[in-house]
């Protein structure tokens, strides 16, 4: 009889993986652990420890391999970099971080079997970015140049959201032009 708490812990561990991977393989992963327990006589908690170490190593890579995962990670880094630039007024370091993240995201070669279907979602992100940046530019003009705390915050937020949206749009375009599948090369 397999310890139900260990099985539950293993299934919770799979939350670290992308949703489609988890849906597809959660039953296989659970069965694999049960097989090891039954046929190799490994303790359930030892299996859970092994799987935790394996998940810590493989789940971030799997997240990175999905297009949306890369977009979210890079957008988060970009937003954090922009906030740091606004708060600490250190522009160069955040920009270098964003460029480095983009270079890492697209520096590895891809070997697609079939090209992606063309997607036009990047247009929506582009429009959203332009609108947000337009609002950030327009706010000082509307207020006559003297901004109180509320309008200053609104302008900063609109600017940040606009730049993030433009970065997401650019990443979607780059991903579509290289004809990638949503998976990275093997390994």
């Amino acid at each position, binding site marked *: 009889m397999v310890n139900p708490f260990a099985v539950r812990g293993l299934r919770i561990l799979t939350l670290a*993986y992308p949703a489609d*991977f988890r849906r*597809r*393989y959660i039953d*296989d*992963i659970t*069965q*694999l*652990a049960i*097989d*090891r327990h*039954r*046929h190799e006589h490994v303790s359930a908690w030892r299996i859970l420890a*092994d*799987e935790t*170490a*394996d*998940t810590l*190593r*493989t*789940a971030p*890579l*799997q997240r990175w391999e999905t297009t949306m995962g890369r977009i979210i990670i890079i957008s988060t880094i970009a937003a954090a970099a922009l906030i740091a630039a606004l708060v600490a007024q250190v522009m160069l370091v955040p920009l270098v971080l964003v460029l480095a993240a983009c270079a890492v995201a697209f520096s590895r070669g891809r*070997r697609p*079997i079939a090209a992606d279907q063309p997607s036009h979602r990047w247009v929506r992100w582009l429009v959203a970015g332009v609108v947000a940046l337009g609002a950030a530019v327009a706010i000082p003009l509307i207020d006559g140049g003297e901004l109180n705390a509320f309008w200053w915050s609104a302008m900063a937020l609109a600017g940040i959201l606009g730049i993030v949206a433009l970065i997401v749009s650019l990443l979607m375009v780059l991903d579509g032009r290289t004809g990638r*599948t949503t*998976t*990275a*090369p*093997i*390994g």
Partner: protein
Amino acid sequence: MTEYVESRHNDVVTDRDDVDAFLPLPASVMHIVVALADGEKHGYAIMRDVKELSDGTVRMGSGTLYGSIKRMLDQSLIEEADERPDPALDDQRRRYYRLTELGQQVGAAEHRRLTALVDAARLRQLGIVPGGAW
């Protein structure tokens, strides 16, 4: 000029460039290819086979195993067979996998590459202790 690789059964003719594009294969993928070379297997059987082939030095966690399987499916190196119980284990239904023609060709190409590397190491006496066995 494009060079073509014919399969064993002359059913699939694959551009050598397509095959070579997969090389070098990561170790985890090559282990799975070798495990599937002698027939269909389910995930636990693949894991067990890899462990036996490597004398216990290579142990795949489920994330590594199914992550590699997912990528290999996406790259058409393997395909899913049916779901059925393994009579050697129990009556639980399991998903079986097998190599595709492309997977066999890529595995063979990787085998040739590794063999050439081992031969070169042997020629240069790598690992041979002077005056004795290694």
